[in-house]
């Protein structure tokens, strides 16, 4: 065993390798992206297959195929990824896995690097009945990932490892088994990844009626067994002893660490139940913990799901118990020891001193993220504003959503991956206004194509501008189907956005270099006058990528 400082994401990679993972798929998103990136570097040498899939749904489906073929798999994504893959996630709970599968979903309380929503992906455990574990730090990322693979093997179920930014991007000394091979015995890369075998078993792998309801019954039966396992699990642990104050804390995830620090600073001795399982919950253990208490504080980030569950358990076992949680700790944003310390002070009457000079300073103006110097998107954002100042501007997920910040202010709606074009179709149908929508190359391949087909099939006329900067830039330069190589650095055909648009039936398609301003302006003008949908592909390499390529020769 080694002890080194690891990032939460690195600990997940080490644990997956130590558990014998051989198939890794995912879609890049902050704060999970380092998991896939790390596998891109080490996969080949360690006999593992790793890919960036076109989106999270495809990534999950790839892993399902691998699992059904007998390979251990790891799927990695950020919070919103689970929305994208949910259509296949729910039936996966019914079929179960054949070989073990762990799905990492990384939420981002406080939205440090997330648009869309401050999502709490814990709700998917209820929706899917898939077991969900919540590590608090890199050591638990390592331990829980290993446990998740063991549970997946034991119960033939996928297991979700639900993390948050402060877990994925936390560092600490971690004790781990280092299985990463730098080179194979011969000194060169290993000869390909491990292969399994698909053994036909439609009874397990097809979720069709009438079998589907039998499967549901089997799933509920399995969940009972996993509940019994959770009751015995050491990752639901109690620290501290009951005191005469009959006050206790129940907590999960990184909030547990903040709670321990707050107790330490306030010199309070309080029993703490830390839940490693979010689903299924160890209800008996919780019941035993709250039985002798007068008051309990539930310390959890975002929605008070644990609080609701514990209220239900208390109704049976200890109806007089005072349950505090979201009335003292906000549903919005991350928690920290200071916030928890203040809540503890309110409950116990003990002082928690926060020394603060903030009120004596004028709040400085916000530093918005900027498009980089030389960014190709700058040409396009300037052009649409110049040529069609009255148009409606659709946005999407990528660097170019910075168009919505000052000084650009050129974004009228922005939702989820690929949504800009879908919404633009609705606006174009519902009004007589001109609609221009921006979409990156990565987003186009991930989620843009069905919306594009819809504009052709149902006849609307937004102008789609695909900002093809030859990479998935925002999340840190990951490859995509337009790049010409895979995550494992294998060559692959460069898919052309323009060819796909034409194949979808778009008649007005033009590829141009956006630094050619006259051509860009003229094309926008020409295409805006059309009665049917048009596509301009602004093809120019990301300025940062160009710089790095130059530096690295």
């Amino acid at each position, binding site marked *: 065993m080694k002890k080194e400082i690891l990032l939460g994401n690195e600990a997940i990679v080490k644990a997956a390798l130590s558990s014998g993972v051989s198939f890794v798929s995912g879609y890049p998103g902050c704060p999970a992206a380092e998991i896939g990136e790390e596998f891109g570097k080490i996969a080949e040498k360690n006999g593992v297959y790793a890919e960036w899939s076109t989106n999270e749904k495809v990534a999950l489906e790839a892993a399902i195929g691998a699992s059904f073929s007998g390979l251990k798999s790891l799927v990695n994504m950020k919070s919103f990824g689970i929305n994208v893959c949910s259509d296949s996630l729910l039936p996966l709970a019914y079929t179960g896995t054949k070989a073990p599968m762990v799905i990492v979903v990384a939420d981002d309380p406080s939205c440090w690097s997330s648009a869309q929503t401050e999502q709490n992906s814990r709700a998917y455990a209820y929706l899917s009945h898939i077991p969900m574990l919540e590590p608090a730090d890199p050591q638990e990322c390592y331990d829980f990932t290993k446990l998740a693979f063991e549970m997946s093997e034991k119960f033939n179920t996928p297991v979700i490892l639900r993390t948050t930014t*402060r877990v994925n991007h936390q560092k*600490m000394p971690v004790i781990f088994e280092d299985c990463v091979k730098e080179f194979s015995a011969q000194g060169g890369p290993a000869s390909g990844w491990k292969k399994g075998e698909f053994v036909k078993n439609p009874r397990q792998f097809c979720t069709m009626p009438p079998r589907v309801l039998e499967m549901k019954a089997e799933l509920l039966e399995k969940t009972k067994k996993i509940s019994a396992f959770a009751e015995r699990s050491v990752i639901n642990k109690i620290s501290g002893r009951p005191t005469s104050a009959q006050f206790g804390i129940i907590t999960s995830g990184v909030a547990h*660490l*903040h709670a321990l620090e707050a107790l330490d600073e306030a010199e309070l001795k309080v029993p703490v139940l830390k839940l490693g399982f979010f689903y299924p919950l160890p209800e008996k253990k919780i019941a035993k913990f709250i039985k002798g208490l007068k008051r309990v504080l539930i310390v959890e980030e975002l929605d008070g799901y644990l609080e609701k569950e514990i209220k239900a358990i208390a109704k049976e076992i200890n109806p007089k118990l005072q349950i505090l949680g979201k009335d003292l700790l906000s549903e919005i944003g991350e928690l*920290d020891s200071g916030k928890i310390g203040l809540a503890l002070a309110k409950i116990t009457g003990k002082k928690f001193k926060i*020394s603060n000079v903030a009120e004596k300073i004028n709040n400085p*103006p916000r530093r918005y993220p900027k498009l980089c110097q030389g960014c190709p998107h700058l040409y396009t954002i300037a052009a649409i504003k110049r040529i069609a100042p009255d148009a409606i501007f659709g946005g999407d997920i990528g660097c170019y959503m910075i168009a919505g910040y000052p000084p650009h202010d050129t974004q009228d709606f922005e939702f989820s991956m690929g949504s800009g074009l879908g919404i633009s179709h609705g606006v174009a149908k519902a009004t007589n206004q001109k609609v221009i929508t921006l979409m990156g190359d990565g987003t186009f391949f991930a989620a843009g194509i069905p919306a594009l087909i819809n504009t052709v099939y149902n006849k609307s006329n937004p102008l789609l501008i695909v900002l093809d900067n030859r990479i998935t830039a925002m999340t840190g330069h990951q490859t995509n189907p337009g790049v010409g190589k895979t995550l494992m650095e294998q060559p692959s055909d460069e898919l052309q956005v323009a060819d796909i648009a034409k194949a979808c039936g778009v008649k007005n398609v033009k590829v141009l270099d956006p630094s050619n301003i006259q051509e860009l302006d003229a094309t926008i003008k020409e295409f805006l006058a059309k009665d049917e949908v048009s596509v301009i592909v602004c093809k120019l390499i990301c300025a940062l990528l160009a710089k790095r390529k130059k530096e690295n020769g």
Partner: protein
Amino acid sequence: MDKNFSVIIKGVGGQGIVTLVSIIDEAAFLDGYDVRSSELHGLSQREGSVEAHIKFGKKIYSPLVYKGQANLIIGQELLEGLRSVALAGAQTKFLINTFYLPFIGSVKEQEILDELNKLSRLQSNRGSSMPTKSASGPKDKLILVPASKICLEKLGKEVVSSIYLLGYAVAKKIMPLKKEFVLQAIKDIIPEKHLELNIKAFELGYAR
């Protein structure tokens, strides 16, 4: 060191803050301390604000430094340094690089310095006079160091300014880490081809 030490590092994307965190983590670990840190990646590379938290000591629970808790705030840019005042407590020391990266709607450099000076008065600075860009020393609560300027002039690279500040902080005991462990950590973390430059930057800051 009896009590745990908390550091917040604030700057903008591209200033080598993630590397600085790795070095401090490793040095504290080599020195036998428990250590935890947390950092934010993502949109930061596009000149957004970056904030990292580090704690080391006998036993560390939380990786986050809460408002008012920091012993030291390292501001890698003037306005970010001013912004970090909102996170400070009465005991907090500030080590601020006078590097200035303005943006549309930003505050003028002199206004930031004035605000910072006002702050040091409010904190009843032990230092003799109001700090200006050049006249502040290690005993002051607010220490302004033109790290980027010096690194550009003497080493040709601004990006090692964070290592320069680390050298200064270690030499003046503003950061309770031993030089030998920090140097070892730099060797462990920095790739071979950039190692010499980083050690030079550290030594230059150490000798200031």
